[in-house]
């Protein structure tokens, strides 16, 4: 697929999402949440390229969401909340990253998981500050000074999420093709050889880790502004598992994967929950199993295979 084709496809996808949100108004919220999560999944995609799975990436999503909630009490301005929350996530990502990039595979995954669980329990236990499992409500927000309400709020946040997804999608695409991205893939194939070439593997991974934290931070801010309620459950390890789930569901081979995966995930969740209230996890889990067993390339890989088959025929 050429670069122009990819760009066209991305824009087409964005228009399609907006049209869907316009046609079915209640989907606007679901799609915004899906796109917010896809921002975090872009980070999972980067780390997967290096062969590392973080089972604690929701830490950065939750961290940004809570940062947004606390900042909103002082300045309820969306255009300030977003960068503040994203930078907070990136900074924590840098400090944590310095430590975790020394570990690989299971240990990398477990350490990230442990840190996200530490954050989760702090959120849950320090009731006087975070209101525990009840969570925190965000006050009414403004966007560039205009109060965010009703219909207007829905559209502003959805368009913001679409723009962020397009921007970060392009960034990740460029990053992966750059020498930094190539070196990232080298960590997966043979790290020692990478070091022999003089490439500091840990720093390569650290850069990706911080970028991943930053993107998850943007996702967390959008999520907090959309749901207007942040709870510790955002940081629980199953939330991180969901992010990895979305990455594989969409397909880890392309930057389209996270967005396709997140939209499919959230739509399945909404419809499954409406269909059978207590068994949406069962349905999602079965979908994931089927995808892994029969379409390891994810939904994106499946679509691409269908397209190329048609071309041959």
């Amino acid at each position, binding site marked *: 697929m050429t670069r122009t084709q990819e760009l066209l496809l991305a824009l087409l996808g964005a228009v399609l999402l907006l049209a869907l949100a316009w046609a079915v108004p209640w989907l606007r919220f679901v799609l915004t949440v899906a796109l917010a999560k896809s921002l975090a999944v872009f980070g999972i995609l980067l780390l997967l390229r290096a062969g590392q799975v973080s089972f604690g990436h929701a830490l950065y999503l939750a961290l940004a969401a809570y940062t947004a909630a606390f900042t909103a009490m002082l300045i309820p301005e969306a255009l300030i909340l977003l960068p503040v929350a994203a930078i907070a996530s990136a900074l924590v990502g840098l400090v944590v990253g310095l430590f975790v990039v020394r570990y690989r595979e299971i240990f990398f995954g477990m350490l990230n998981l*442990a840190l996200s669980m530490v954050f989760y*329990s702090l959120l849950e*236990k320090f009731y006087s500050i975070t209101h525990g499992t009840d969570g925190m409500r965000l006050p009414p927000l403004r966007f560039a000074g205009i109060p965010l309400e009703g219909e207007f709020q829905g559209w502003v946040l959805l368009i913001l999420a679409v723009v962020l997804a397009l921007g970060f999608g392009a960034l990740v695409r460029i990053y992966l093709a750059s020498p930094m991205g190539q070196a990232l893939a080298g960590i997966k194939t043979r790290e*020692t050889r990478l070091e022999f070439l003089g490439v500091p593997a840990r720093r390569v991974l650290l850069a990706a880790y911080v970028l991943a934290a930053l993107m998850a931070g943007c996702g967390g801010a959008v999520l907090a502004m959309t749901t207007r309620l942040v709870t510790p459950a955002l940081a629980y*390890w199953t939330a991180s598992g969901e992010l990895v789930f979305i990455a594989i569901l969409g397909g880890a081979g392309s930057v389209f994967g996270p967005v396709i995966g997140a939209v499919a995930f959230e739509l399945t969740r909404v419809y499954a929950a409406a269909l059978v209230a207590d068994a949406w996890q069962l349905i999602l889990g079965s979908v994931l*199993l089927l995808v892994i067993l029969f379409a390891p390339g994810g939904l994106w890989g499946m679509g691409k295979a269908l397209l190329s088959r048609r071309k041959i025929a």
Partner: protein
Amino acid sequence: MGAWFSENGLLVGLAALDGLSYAAAVFMVAVGLNLVFGVLRVLNIAHGSLYAIGGYSAASLGLFLSSRGLPEFLAYPALVVAAALVGALLGPPIERLLLRRMQDHEPVLQLLVTFALFMILEDLQKLLWGVQPVVSDAPVRLLGTVDIPFGADVIPFNAYQLYVLPGIALATLVGLAWFLRKTLAGRMIVAVTTDREAARAMGIDAAKVTLLTFTAGAALAALGGALASPTVSLVPGVGAQTIVLSFAVVATAGLGQIEGAAIAALLIGLGRSFAVYLEPELEVVIPYVIMLAVLLVRPQGLFGVAETRRI
């Protein structure tokens, strides 16, 4: 210090006793997880669900027996029978139908298969046992309490948590260590863990060993849940809690360590229960803080062996 101890001494004693019984249950789960990781090279996320299902099944079986008016002491064999049933019914199909098919796939996909399984089992458990807490405390009630002298005071503590839980955990530890080192079947498991290819070249049926190990690991997790079930009330989410805790134990101990897992379980179990009694806010954090501290100093875990770098 002296004044503090005379004030909090009883709490310390109680925390130590509680920590011991808690560590025993966690050890059962963690050691199974460790065994399975050894032969399959997958950290089974659904392992915690097996613990939860083991607990629920044991509670249900116990309640069923007592509702039939059968003698109450049957609650003890019921614990073991329920665990064995869960292991035998769930273990082989999971290994045969899912994990074996995934063996040549990327590690990420293998891990995610067990996550999918976790999601499925979590909801099945909710569908079968509902979301209300399930309590079956006959095994604890029947044994009564023991007064443990502690300085000038006595601590009344239930005998089940004092003797049965740690006793079975200790028996598992010793039995497993003996089995793995002294019996042919055990040494086959160790061989497959160390080098699957070489073991197969020696004529070991690695597929069979994997199946049996996975089933045994599943049964151990279920047994951990069954043994813990009389001491807690079972609620949804207990599987998710248990699995991250046993991850922490396994990572702290180092992958593949049996005795190490026991020591790490003790460390984490005691640490957690001391937090429960002295600084309740830190209860959930402590296990991870211990794990992070250990991995910071020894990246391969307390007893793990560092892998040599391959070129």
